[in-house]
């Protein structure tokens, strides 16, 4: 492997423009048909929020942990979701912060979502004011019919996916009733996935080759005390667009 003599081409990582930010909805090799952890022990992940990014490693001594389905009701008996109006200005609720999906320190969660109640439109935001999945017209809602179709057919790769890092990138959700005939006390969202306990790699250990786009980690060999550089392949995940726009 090359050594620090390559310094002239390996500059310190520049997160503002060196690695282009991912789009809001990730459709990458992460979205596999079978839902499986995207980072395994020893592998690296680059967590990006807006222009800011940091690189982490899932320790070789740790494992990804499954997160069983969490059900979140975004309406209630005391605060029902109003019926869809005639006016074209739907009486939505939210965005409500989904704090029950937050994680402990240095932990990343990967969620996929299913709309559990028929006739509810769900829209995700991360952070609260920025639509998470959108096209030119704006936020793309999902619902029971558009998610359960994929879930029941085993096409889990087509389910809406989002990442949460610690409790600093909380997802918010707005709901709208699709029924013009009645209110509802239930608008439940189901989220399941994996969590990854991570170790942060200090910025001064990361090197980036601007010519090739390769990422390296410089570290001290604990036995020989010699400096070594190792190429790493961090998987980029987005935890919200932050101040990118």
């Amino acid at each position, binding site marked *: 492997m090359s050594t620090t003599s390559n310094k002239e081409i390996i500059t310190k990582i520049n997160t503002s423009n060196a690695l282009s930010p991912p789009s809001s909805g990730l459709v990458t090799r992460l979205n596999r048909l079978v839902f499986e952890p995207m980072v395994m022990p020893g592998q690296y992940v680059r967590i990006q929020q807006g222009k800011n990014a940091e690189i982490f490693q899932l320790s070789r001594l740790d494992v990804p942990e499954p997160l069983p389905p969490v059900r979140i009701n975004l309406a209630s008996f005391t605060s029902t979701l109003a019926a869809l109006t*005639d*006016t*074209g200005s739907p009486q939505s609720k939210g965005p409500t912060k989904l704090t029950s999906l937050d994680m402990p320190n240095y932990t990343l969660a990967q969620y996929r979502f299913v709309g559990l109640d028929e*006739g509810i439109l769900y829209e995700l935001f991360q952070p609260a004011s920025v639509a998470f999945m959108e096209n030119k017209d704006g936020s793309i809602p999902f619902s*029971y*019919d558009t998610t*359960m179709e994929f879930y029941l057919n085993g096409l889990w790769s087509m389910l809406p996916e989002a990442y949460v890092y610690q409790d600093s990138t909380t997802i918010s959700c707005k709901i709208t009733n699709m*029924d*013009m*005939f009645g209110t509802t006390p239930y608008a439940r969202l189901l989220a399941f996935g994996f969590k990854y306990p991570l170790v942060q790699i200090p910025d001064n250990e990361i090197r980036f080759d601007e010519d090739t786009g390769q990422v390296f980690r410089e570290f001290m060999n604990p036995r020989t005390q010699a400096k070594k550089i190792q190429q790493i392949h961090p998987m980029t995940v987005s935890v919200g667009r932050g101040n990118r726009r």
Partner: protein
Amino acid sequence: MAGTIQYRKPFSFKKGYSKLIPSGAVSTQLVRMPWQVPVQKPGVLRKVLISNPVGLAGTLAIWDQDLSNTTPPTAGSAGAALLPLGFGLSVLSGSANQTTVYTADQLPEIPFYSGMSSQSTQPGVTVAFEVEYI
């Protein structure tokens, strides 16, 4: 299999409702269709149960109209229903009502764009039904 629907239409969902039709002469809104943005889904009847407490047979007329908004177009009327469903005599002796059931394979796939409005020739009829929003 008779009497059941094996497959939903892709990207559709079903909801169940129940409505009492108090008078034979007044139109009753069974359900409004979500014709407004951002939903705009027509509905199809997939199952209807008509419970008749009166000792006479009758007909339930269903047509396409939102009784509380004139914006969406209408189709059919009380006199010229899109879907006339007959229901049977109730049992005069004893307390059991006569319930007539129409299942998905008996109901034509008529889309309702505005709403399901109805009139019954007998008052006091309760209609429980399933709508698939397609």
